[in-house]
């Protein structure tokens, strides 16, 4: 057992020389460290924050924003052990096969790997998330109570699973949950209050020579690793690469001006539609989580099929049932008139508001850049240019309309699309704080910052982990998927570092 080391206690000019330095103690960094526990590698896990929230450390995340209103850069993520899992909602869902594919109708889409490459790692990722047995799209068979039948068409009932969340049980906060496991691993030394301020390359710009480290107490030290994995989140990954610009003037790995571009999140506009269920009753799994006897915590959502995405050129989305609501006069008229026309009794109909998580199309202009302002350790702060296209809304609207059609086809209900104008969508907008895309994967260095293994193009010993690698985003919450991708990196590192 090595225990955690507070970097503030290190003597000045300390030089640490591990086999592997993992930058960031969030879900990706911790999962990677745990995957390599017991390997014949001396590993440092470098966490900027401490064991708990600290406002001075958190302040280093603040930055500027332009464009569409978005969560403040120091509010949508957390900088202490466990990273943003410390405010995680616990939602888990694997990406769909279609999320990995090149979509002709979506520029810049497609992963350099298929879902099959992640499948061996999903079970382990699920276990790390403490999300119970792997059920997901077999959820229909596992539920008690009738599910809402949908007519044949483009959407189906899909399922989230949850990291433990039920009643007062919180999701897995990776720092607290795996603190003891990290301590117990003989080959892992976790450092807290250890901030990387620069990734310094050798003069040939082909490998990392050292990491410059600092603490908020004024300490400075150096890490000279054989291999580096940058796992600091999609914003900070880009920031560190861009700010490390002494050898490569545009920043490490930024020879093709891609670092920080293609930033993405999941818009989660509220009250996007009104669902009327003619029969009134709706199984509890739609509006809230239900716990199965085997411990799985699940919730239903409506998802477009891969075939529908392709046929209608739409994007991914997950539509959820939120609150019971009342109908207005036009709604009442619509329900009575339609139900009678369909020959259905709607006298006990109930209605509900719907929410959603939408997939954005990749956009190179939705990007992070450095500003002239610096944080307490001298690192330039970020500016986010946030965009959301009218087409992003229009495509999701098509999906909702199809859901409405399927409800009519099954004669079980009907749907109202609540927003048709951009300002309506934006007024209802919230964000998942699922930061993605800023160091996207591609085998082509002109299309991506890292290759299919997560290795930064052109740099022999620098990998990136996390959802910053996602070239297309899907609508699933990223945590489970980024962990699976990181576990795959763990296997890769075991091979290349052996």
């Amino acid at each position, binding site marked *: 057992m090595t225990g955690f080391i507070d970097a503030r206690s290190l003597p000045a000019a300390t030089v640490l020389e591990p086999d592997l330095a993992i930058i960031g103690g969030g879900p990706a960094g911790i999962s990677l460290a745990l995957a390599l526990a017991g390997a014949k590698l001396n590993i440092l896990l470098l966490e900027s924050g401490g064991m708990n929230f600290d406002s001075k450390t958190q302040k280093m995340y603040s930055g500027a924003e332009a464009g569409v209103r978005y969560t403040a850069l120091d509010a949508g993520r957390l900088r202490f052990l466990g990273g943003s899992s410390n405010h995680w909602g616990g939602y888990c869902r694997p990406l769909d096969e279609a999320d990995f594919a090149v979509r002709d109708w979506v520029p810049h889409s497609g992963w350099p790997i298929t879902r099959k490459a992640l499948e061996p790692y999903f079970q382990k990722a699920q276990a790390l998330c403490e999300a119970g047995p792997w059920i997901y799209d077999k959820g229909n068979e596992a539920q008690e109570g009738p599910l809402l039948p949908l*007519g044949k068409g483009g959407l189906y009932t899909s399922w989230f699973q949850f990291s433990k969340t039920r009643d007062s049980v919180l999701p897995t906060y990776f720092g607290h949950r795996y603190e003891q496991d990290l301590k117990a691993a003989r080959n892992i030394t976790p450092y807290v209050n250890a901030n990387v301020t620069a990734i310094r390359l050798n003069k040939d710009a082909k490998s990392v020579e050292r990491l410059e480290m600092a603490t908020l107490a004024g300490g400075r030290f150096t890490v000279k690793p054989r291999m580096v994995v940058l796992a600091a989140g999609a914003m900070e990954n880009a920031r560190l690469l861009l700010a490390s610009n002494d050898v490569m003037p545009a920043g490490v790995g930024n020879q093709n001006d891609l670092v920080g571009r293609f930033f993405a999140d999941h818009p989660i506009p509220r009250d996007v539609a*009104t669902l009327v269920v003619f029969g009134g009753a709706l199984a509890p799994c739609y509006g809230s989580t239900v716990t199965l006897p085997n411990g799985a915590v699940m919730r239903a959502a409506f998802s477009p099929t891969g075939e529908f995405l392709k046929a209608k050129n739409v994007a991914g989305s997950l539509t959820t049932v939120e609150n019971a609501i009342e109908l207005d*006069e*036009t*709604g*009442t*008229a*619509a329900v*009575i*008139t*339609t139900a*009678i*026309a*369909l*020959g259905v009794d709607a006298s006990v109909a109930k209605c509900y508001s719907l929410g959603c998580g939408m997939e954005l199309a990749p956009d190179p202009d939705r990007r992070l850049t450095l500003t002239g302002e610096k944080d307490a350790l001298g690192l330039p702060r970020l500016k986010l240019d946030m965009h959301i296209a009218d087409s992003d809304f229009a495509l999701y609207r098509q999906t909702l*309309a199809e859901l*409405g*059609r399927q*409800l*009519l*086809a099954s004669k079980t209900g*009907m*749907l*109202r*699309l*609540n927003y*048709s104008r951009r300002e309506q969508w934006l007024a209802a907008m919230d964000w998942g704080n699922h930061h993605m895309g800023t160091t996207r994967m591609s085998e082509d260095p002109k299309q991506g910052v890292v290759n299919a293994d997560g290795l930064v193009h052109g740099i022999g010993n620098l990998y990136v982990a996390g959802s910053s690698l996602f070239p297309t985003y899907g609508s699933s919450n990223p945590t489970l998927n980024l962990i699976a991708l990181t576990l795959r990196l763990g296997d890769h590192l075991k091979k290349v570092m052996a």
Partner: protein
Amino acid sequence: MVAGVMAAGAALAAGLYRFTDLFVKHYPATPYDDVLAALVDRAQATKLGAKVPDGLEPQALAARLRASLKPDGLAAAAQSDVAAGRVIEVDGWVVPESVALLSALAAKA
């Protein structure tokens, strides 16, 4: 005298007729009553129809509806619309095309 009694009788009949509006709404005769007869609750359809985006004239609407409703009635037409993807948004509500058009006709009639 006779004329007076007849007038009083007519007024009484009209009053009784309007009184029954409390139970069954009566509408003035229109050239589209054969089509509108498909509506069980014309009052609600009229409210919905008022929100249908303006487009077709009543005569054209009625002609189109006669064609679509003729074979098997409104229920079959509505289901056929849904299966074929012929749905229309009315104030955001996704409704079968024939229901939307019939409601629009009710609002215009």
